[in-house]
């Protein structure tokens, strides 16, 4: 047993030295503010793990924003510099990332992460350090009911409002022509469910019957049973609260059953560039809400699309645009408040300014209510003649909404 004892002593010692190294190693940097230093902006993004694909899109949007700003001379005469950490799509990590960015790296500003699931915990950290939190991805209703005072969502509308234009369109139809029954299927995810249930609430209120309402976990890969239930209900309309791949799978499963609704709306998936190929080009008549279009003629959008395309060799999508919008919103506040630092007064000024002003962005002019909800609406797009085109609202439409939809 002698050996065991000596060993335990050794272990205790090595533990000690390890802990010392930890503290020695993680201390270190820490910068003094001066007007020549770049403005450092901290971000945590899911660059690996379940949300890595959209996470990388958001990263590209942020980087494009920083490049465009720096090419024009920076903010307040200072260059901007992004410090991006990977949170591995994990809530523990996202919180420790923002702790690190704010506490150890002493960044001047922060941008939000991706995915509603990660927005709420990270918003809490940032809120408790009293910093402005503009985020590109937390659209679910829960984000805005936590009592955050420094949070702003940098997109046209929260999830529940995505289908507002479509709901108005349906309710404006003569009652005999309206779809009378609807089948809903939504992924168990605050954002995806939010979009479908926002529409459901409005349609139900108008007396349009819900005949099926399915919620499936994000890991669902086989949609045979869900599709069977929807097809069996023979609903006039199907609404999918979907992300990308589950939307594709659901549509393919519905097509396998030869289910032909008069109207079919799915969030996110139909606006992705890969969509048409993924479902074998049987896209006719599928509807989808979108917060962004490359064709929008807001002045900053033309610049964004052009420079982004030059930088990345392809046009930006919604994730990129929302990230870019976040940058624009923060930049507007910084220029108005003429400061960018962790100093509570400065952060306070930034928040106050955004509360009371409208910001012009690539998704149009944005203003927020006192909970940080943006006050605009999403456009509705439809696949018409093999191309996705804006059909609602009338002011922006590129084509007429086709109803009832042709067979797929």
């Amino acid at each position: 047993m002698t050996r065991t004892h000596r060993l335990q002593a050794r272990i205790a010692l090595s533990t000690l030295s390890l802990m010392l190294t930890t503290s020695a190693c993680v201390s270190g940097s820490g910068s003094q503010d001066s007007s020549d230093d770049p403005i450092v902006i901290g971000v945590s993004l899911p660059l690996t793990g379940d949300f890595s694909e959209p996470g990388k899109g958001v990263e590209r949007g942020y980087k494009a924003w920083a490049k465009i700003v720096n090419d024009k001379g920076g903010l307040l005469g200072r260059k901007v510099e992004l410090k991006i950490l990977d949170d591995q799509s994990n809530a523990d990590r996202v919180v420790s990332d923002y702790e690190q960015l704010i506490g150890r790296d002493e960044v001047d500003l922060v941008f939000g992460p991706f995915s509603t699931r990660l927005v709420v915990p990270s918003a809490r950290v940032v809120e408790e350090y009293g910093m402005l939190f503009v985020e590109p991805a937390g659209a679910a209703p829960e984000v805005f009911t936590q009592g955050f005072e420094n949070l702003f969502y940098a997109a046209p509308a929260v999830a529940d409002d995505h289908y507002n234009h479509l709901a108005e369109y349906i309710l404006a139809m003569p009652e005999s022509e309206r779809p009378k029954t609807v089948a809903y299927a939504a992924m168990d995810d605050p954002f995806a469910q939010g979009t479908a249930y926002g529409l459901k609430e409005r349609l139900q209120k108008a007396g349009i019957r819900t005949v099926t309402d399915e919620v499936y976990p994000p890991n669902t890969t086989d949609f045979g049973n869900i599709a069977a239930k929807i097809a069996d209900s023979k609903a006039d309309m199907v609404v999918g609260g979907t992300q990308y791949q589950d939307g594709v799978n659901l549509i393919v499963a519905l097509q396998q059953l030869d289910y032909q609704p008069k109207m079919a709306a799915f969030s996110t998936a139909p606006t992705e560039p890969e969509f048409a190929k993924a479902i074998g080009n049987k896209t006719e008549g599928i509807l989808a809400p979108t917060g962004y279009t490359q064709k929008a003629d807001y002045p900053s959008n033309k610049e964004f699309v052009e420079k982004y395309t030059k930088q990345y060799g392809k046009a930006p999508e919604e994730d990129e645009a929302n990230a870019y919008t976040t940058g624009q919103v923060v930049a507007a506040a910084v220029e108005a408040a003429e400061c960018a630092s962790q100093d509570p007064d400065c952060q306070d000024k930034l928040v106050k300014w955004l509360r009371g002003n409208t910001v012009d962005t690539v998704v149009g002019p944005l203003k927020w209510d006192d909970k940080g909800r943006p006050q605009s609406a999403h456009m509705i797009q439809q696949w018409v003649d093999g191309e996705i085109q804006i059909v609602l609202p009338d002011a922006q439409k590129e084509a007429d909404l086709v109803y009832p939809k042709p067979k797929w």
Partner: protein
Amino acid sequence: MRRGSELPSRTHGLLHLGALLAAVAVALSFPSMAPSPYEITVGIAILNYAVLSTSWNFVGGFTGYISLGHGAFAGLGAYGTGLLTAKAELPPFVALFVAAALVAVLAVPVGYAALRVRGASFVIVSIALVLIMLLVFQSWASLTGGSRGLVVPRPFPGMLRAEHHRTFYFLFLALLATALLSWWVIDRSRFGMGLKAIREDEDKAQSLGTPTYTYKLVVFVVSAAFTALAGGLYALWFGDLDPVFQFSILSGAYMVLMALLGGVRHLYGPLLGAVAVGYALEYAKVEYGDTPLHLVVAGLLLFVVVMFMPDGVIPAAGALLARFRRTGETSIREVTAAELRGRREQDDGTEVRGSERTTRGA
């Protein structure tokens, strides 16, 4: 065990005590040495790992039963504490202990199903437990909030974040100390001797009169309760719960990896493993951020530990040390070829005996 009572000299005991005191001193002064709250959160994360893997080691270390599902108990402790605070409006720290007690109660039927039969079924049940809890907590959204998550009210409203971290650092430290102390008490007790006998040879232990099933069940429940306490404390500290993160097989696997790496037969093994793995994770994140290779690294590490040093680094280091010392231990061995053969048969024979084992109720 009569560890220490017959040492040729007392110096080793003193050295041990001194090192322990020094470690405690460092642990206690760490928050005031930390340059920013971030370092304290890293400290908390590592302490949390240490409590979890030490709790795991009540089952893994003593009985040799490897549970991959302890993440479920941590998640249940977290959700239990969160729900009791948020919905039943219990005071946070009352909720913490009530939740741990409830998890302990739940561990009884789980243990009943898992431990009644030996070996493989235990592992299967432990993994299944995580997966089923994930499904239940996702589906039962009206109670748990489902994928929208659950917000746990702050136990100390109005406390500044840095102060909040500091407080929880000491709470975690206290929990770790309690867990280590409990492990130590069991380790040197007759109960612990019985458990270790189960680890070595369950049939043999039972034939000597140890009520193996009861012993396993008791220690399983104790382990679950400590794990739930760690999970609950984490919930109070962290504030946001999401089933996907609370009920993850990976977190259970990390507990195993840490304990195994440090050495399951030693009091400080899991703690050491937690410090090493926790520190490595943090370091890897800061240095090599954004590749999914951390899974590969964790997998390879587990692989190396299982294949080459199943007793952990402490005995591996000890063996290395012994090789330098070259003590006269070989003199005990007087093995003949026939005896070697016999021993090999003995090993193979495990299966024969296994084939005649039966399931045993309480």
